[in-house]
């Protein structure tokens, strides 16, 4: 069977799987960005309880394996009466895991904002909430976006794991086709290529564009 015949027969299935992968990626991306912001800020709180909660959360999710967390959410939570759909379980596990890594990036970004900015906002009598929202957060984006871009590419790669909790994504479809046809080189090779194209030609350019945009917003980039 030639490669083109393989594509003609199974290409649509793989593309449908790719659509699911993209959905998982977008949902978990939104979730992880929100979690990183919240826990990154909590980590810097002066309140020891809030800071402690954030530290435990971050250490816990960075210290255990994503696959273990995913299986825990999908197979163990039902023991406590919480049954999540595979897709939701996948997104929740990915979001929680990457949120922990993202929180550390956010924390680093906030610490990297020059101290004078805090003092100036203080001198201008900004409320603490307004200080964070209007002065500090806009300035952290140029700092956190490059490491966050790396993390997001890692996230795209990690979405492959949701196939193991029966989410019908690209990896799942590739495995399925492999078990029917045994054309392993074709189906896994194509899956690898699709992931590569998604990362190199879509995700990375998008994140670079965001970086340029963020730099321009604070007046550091080329106009």
């Amino acid at each position, binding site marked *: 069977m030639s490669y083109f015949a393989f594509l003609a027969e199974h290409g649509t299935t793989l593309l449908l799987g790719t659509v699911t992968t993209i959905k998982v990626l977008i949902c978990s991306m939104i979730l992880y960005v929100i979690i990183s912001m919240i826990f990154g800020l909590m980590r810097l709180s002066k309140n020891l309880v809030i800071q402690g909660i954030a530290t435990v959360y971050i*250490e*816990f999710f*960075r*210290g*255990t*394996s*994503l*696959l*273990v*967390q995913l*299986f*825990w959410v999908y*197979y*163990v939570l039902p*023991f*406590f009466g919480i049954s999540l759909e595979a897709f939701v379980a996948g997104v929740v596990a990915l979001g929680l895991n990457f949120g922990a890594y993202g929180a550390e990036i956010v924390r680093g970004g906030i610490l990297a904002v020059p101290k004078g900015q805090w003092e100036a906002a203080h001198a201008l009598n900004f409320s603490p909430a307004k200080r964070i929202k209007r002065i500090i957060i806009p300035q952290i984006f140029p700092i956190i976006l490059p490491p966050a871009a790396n993390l997001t*590419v890692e996230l*795209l*790669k*990690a*979405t*492959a*794991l949701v*196939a*193991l909790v029966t989410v019908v994504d690209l*990896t799942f479809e*590739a*495995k399925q086709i*492999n078990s029917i046809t045994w054309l*392993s*080189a074709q189906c*896994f*090779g194509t*899956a*690898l290529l699709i*992931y*590569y194209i998604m*990362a*190199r030609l879509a995700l*990375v350019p998008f994140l670079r564009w965001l970086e340029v945009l963020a730099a321009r917003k604070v007046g550091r980039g080329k106009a």
Partner: protein
Amino acid sequence: MEMGFRWDFAYEILPDMLWATLNTIIAAGVGYAIALVVGLFFLLGQRTPSKIINGINREIVEFIRSTPLLIQLFFVYFVLPQFGIKLSAWVCGMITIGLHFGTYLSEVYRGALEGVSKTQWEACRALNFSTAYTYRKIVLPQAFPIAIPGMGNYLVGIFKDTPLLSTIGVAELFHAATAVGGYNYRYLEPYTMVGIIFLILSVPAAMWVRKLERTVNVAQGKIKQ
């Protein structure tokens, strides 16, 4: 089915889990050793004067780095036999982990070499040292401490990615937990124990790496004590 954590069941499966943990540690150790060597080859490909080899090397590294380890595992495990190369799940797993993380380690090495000041090279040139001698006596001793934190991070990273090996049937910790869980139809205890074992092993390791990183930064004069 009984709800809640059953301590007696957890105690019963503990010996099996601990034996499997040993396998996980071996897998991480062997995979890491291969990755360290593979990283050197990718570094070599990056630093050869030939532009063509540089380009090919870069594309290979980019490809491996931007595709999921899981599918790479499937690829190696299912495709090699089609070409008449029959390897055990263990060997396939180790090769794939070695290749995947080798690309990351080559970046660590590159960063470390570039972290050595250019004037060091110029001084060696002025003293008429050979390239080999410069590397061995001047550059590598300075580059190595810079590389240590990154190398440590990827050791922890590999350790946390070893559960993926269970998908091709390597009998490590996660595989054991799935087997025990399936046999008794109770996943709560096995998976929770896997999580706890991972925490016990990787949190201190990660803290130790962070401490090393700080020590190196202090020694380099990047931050004050």
